């Protein structure tokens, strides 16, 4: 009798635990909701670009709602990791692998814009006079603001490396200072790019040169803004004691994204700014 009761107690306790180290996620509304918000955003963009009424409104609404669902989904992940103990070593490994795959997909997006750029520039078509840059286009001096921007991005990469190691070493003041400097350098980069964009003598509508220039640097600039927000949120979470030395994937993924952005800029600087100018 005693033996059976012990067995039952043991079973009741064992049923509360899983015999594997993975995370079987609870049901959540965020995936289906984000699919709808992304759909609104995409349709809104198309309607806006074709001149339909309220297309822009739908685009903005879709963007706002997507950001909102991202916030809720990511905060759920934070709760699952930091408070529910679901993020074992395997789970963290899987999350990082997933993010690396996402970065690889972003690399392919940039490959497509670089392809378009090289297709147009290596053999300039007869319609633009067979020259690159086309006649009438005055390209930006690569050894002016673009060079400064290169130093800004490389330095922000150095500062965030400093910050990441300071975080692991438990040096709070160094961590906060270096993450702050990273964000400052990133914002200054964006500001200089904005100045370049407004001061340039050619626009996106100035032949395929303008199109490929602004498509490539514009896609990169968008990624810089996203990366800056990513790092800034990591910075706020560090200040708020939201992360630990053993579990800070939100910081590490942000750093990986930022290094990716930096490397894309180096390719842009060499191929578009330097090789693509006179």
């Amino acid at each position, binding site marked *: 009798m005693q033996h059976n009761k012990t067995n039952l107690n043991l079973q009741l306790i064992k049923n509360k635990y899983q015999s594997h180290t993975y995370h079987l996620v609870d049901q959540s509304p965020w995936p289906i909701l984000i699919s709808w918000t992304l759909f609104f955003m995409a349709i809104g963009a198309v309607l806006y670009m074709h001149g339909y009424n309220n297309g822009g409104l739908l685009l903005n609404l879709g963007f706002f709602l997507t950001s909102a669902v991202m916030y809720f989904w990511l905060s759920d992940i934070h709760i699952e990791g930091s408070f529910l103990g679901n993020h074992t070593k395997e789970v963290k490994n899987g999350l990082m692998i997933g993010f690396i795959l996402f970065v690889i997909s972003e690399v392919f997006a940039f490959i497509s814009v670089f392809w378009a750029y090289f297709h147009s520039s290596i053999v300039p078509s007869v319609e633009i006079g067979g020259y690159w840059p*086309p006649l009438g286009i005055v390209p930006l001096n690569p050894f002016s603001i673009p060079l400064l921007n290169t130093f800004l991005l490389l330095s922000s990469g150095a500062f965030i490396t400093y910050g990441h190691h300071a975080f692991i070493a438990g040096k709070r003041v160094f961590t906060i200072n*270096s993450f702050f400097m990273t964000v400052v350098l990133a914002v200054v980069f964006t500001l200089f790019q904005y100045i370049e964009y407004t001061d340039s003598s050619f626009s*996106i509508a100035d032949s395929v040169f303008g199109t490929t220039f602004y498509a490539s640097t514009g896609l990169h600039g968008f990624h810089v803004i996203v990366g800056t927000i990513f790092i800034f949120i990591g910075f706020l979470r560090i200040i708020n004691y939201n992360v630990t030395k053993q579990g800070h994937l939100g910081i590490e993924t942000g750093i990986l994204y930022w290094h990716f952005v930096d490397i894309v800029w180096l390719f842009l600087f060499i191929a578009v700014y330097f090789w693509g100018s006179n």
Partner: protein
Amino acid sequence: MSFRLLVRRTAPTLRRFSTETPVAGKNAYLANLEAVEHHAAETTELWRKISHYVCLPAIAVCAAWVYNIEMEHKAHLEHEMAENDGHLPAPPAYEYLNVRRKPFPWGPNSLFYNSENLSEE
């Protein structure tokens, strides 16, 4: 039964899967954590030096140089404007420049249009 109680009372509190339980002098997991933290302290110092003594001076030097270039460029543009009664000379009217096969959704000008910089667009 008394023997069992005796064993229970004198058995060492060996919790086999606890990270605090020492094994052969030093717990391997804790030792690893300490090594990581120590290594991170050294690497922090390296990157602190790189960030402060290489990157920041490089930015300062480059900024000074670029400031010179841009001031020169501005003077050149003003000279061109003075020669061209107040505005920049128009770019050649090639059909591949300033293309508008379809208007922008937001109006006639490009998104970063700057009327001071471009001549007549």
